[in-house]
């Protein structure tokens, strides 16, 4: 009987690299609770997101490497996840919100809200606690997409977010009745956004996604001044005038030092429902090219599909209403890539605070 030592197990696991964080899983502190009983080895791998794109790969590698240790007969691995906080947010109610991600676009009509809703639900389907704030004061569409309209309630001085498809959400649309527009000057928009961040009972969240209005304006400014964003994601269509318009939003993130987590190309191509032929209505690949040129991660491309629109209008995002469709898989994949970028941001970000020194 060969005795297996904890150190041997850890040494073997040091060979497993996280491809995104580019370090081994032991020094990253992912490995917990190593237990050895004769030939049986059990341990836990705690990832930084339940939506990890390489979860299966890491588990397989770890298993194979530990099985190679002489004397090991059986390996049981428990895969868990704990999303790390990007920064401590001073605002009391956001203390338990670990990461805030803003989703923006250069112009309207690129399907940003549909993308955001599907990403939020995707993350929740992977087991994360997710919130979604619809900060689009011009065309708040999240209530329709999530299939829940109407006013919000207030409990203990906090606005209660609505809950559907596994996520909590709040919308600027809840401040207006029916088809009434929100005709707000800057200060009103500022107050409304601040309130939906600070005065909403978000509770504990791994990710709070914010659906921004198109372009750059009051809402964006309020957001970057009120909270420390983990990062921003850009949605664009392939043409977007050579991404010139999207560049403006990217520049805004730059000027306010918000990390760009990645670019998503929406309405990337159209698969004909009759002949299955692929048509590139707005051209194709513009976002991918731009991301390569700018050195920004490219998160994926989503086709123009009638089913996405139909499910959205019915208030059930396609990732949950048609979970086995190819486009749902695309969304899930993009959400995981985004989660990976959030984890990277969490590792490389340092938070600043003012140290008071009495003189």
């Amino acid at each position: 009987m060969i005795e297996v030592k904890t150190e041997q197990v850890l040494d073997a696991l040091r060979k497993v690299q996280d491809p995104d964080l580019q370090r081994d899983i032991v020094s990253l502190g992912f490995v917990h609770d190593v237990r050895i009983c004769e030939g049986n080895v059990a341990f836990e791998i705690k990832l930084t997101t339940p939506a990890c794109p390489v979860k299966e790969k890491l588990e397989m590698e770890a298993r194979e490497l530990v099985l190679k240790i002489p004397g090991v007969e059986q390996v049981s691995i428990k895969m868990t996840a704990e999303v790390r906080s990007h920064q401590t947010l001073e605002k009391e109610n956001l203390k338990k919100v670990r990461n805030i991600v803003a989703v923006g676009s250069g112009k309207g009509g690129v399907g940003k809200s549909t993308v955001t809703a599907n990403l939020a639900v995707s993350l929740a389907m992977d087991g994360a606690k997710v919130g979604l704030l619809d900060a689009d004061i011009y065309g708040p569409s999240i209530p329709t997409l999530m299939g829940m309209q109407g006013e919000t309630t207030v409990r203990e001085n906090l606005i209660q977010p609505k809950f559907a498809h596994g996520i909590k959400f709040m919308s600027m649309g809840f401040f207006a009745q029916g088809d009434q527009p929100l005709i707000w000057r800057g200060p009103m928009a500022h107050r409304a956004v601040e309130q939906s961040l600070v005065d909403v009972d978000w509770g504990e969240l791994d990710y709070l996604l914010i659906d921004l209005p198109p372009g750059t304006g009051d809402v964006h400014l309020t957001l970057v001044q009120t909270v420390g964003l983990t990062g921003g994601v850009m949605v664009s269509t392939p043409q977007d005038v050579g991404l010139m318009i999207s560049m403006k939003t990217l520049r805004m993130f730059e000027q306010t030092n918000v990390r760009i987590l990645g670019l998503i190309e929406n309405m990337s191509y159209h698969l004909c429902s009759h002949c299955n032929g692929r048509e590139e209505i707005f051209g194709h690949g513009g976002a991918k090219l731009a991301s390569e040129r700018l050195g920004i991660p490219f998160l994926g491309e989503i086709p123009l599909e009638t089913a996405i629109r139909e499910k959205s209008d019915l208030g059930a995002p396609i990732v949950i209403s048609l979970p086995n469709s190819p486009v749902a898989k695309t969304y899930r994949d993009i959400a995981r890539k985004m989660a990976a970028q959030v984890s990277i941001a969490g590792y490389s970000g340092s938070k600043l605070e003012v140290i008071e020194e009495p003189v």
Partner: protein
Amino acid sequence: MSQPYQANPLSENFPLPRELRKLGRKELKITWQDGHLSVYGFRYLRTQCQCAFCVEEITGRKLLVDSCLPEVLEGMGVSVVGQYALRIDFSDGHNSGIYAYKHLRKACPCELCRPAK
């Protein structure tokens, strides 16, 4: 993990602080990620305010007359704004300015930075 926060590949030359220290009510000390050290008196910072009361928004013309400020001007509080700036509460009650790190670095009063202007 004190890696400089490479926030954004678009912003290669974005100057970011590594450490922010408020020395009593007199001075603000910023150690930048490139190692540079900036020490600002709060009265000087008050003259650098970029808010719409102190600088005309469209032309960028300075409206604030430095000599009209009280002789003794202290910093009551400094807080971080998002990921790119500071907000300062001055003893004259002014606090509407947002001091972007980029601007603060440009306004560094040290001898190395001064002649460059």
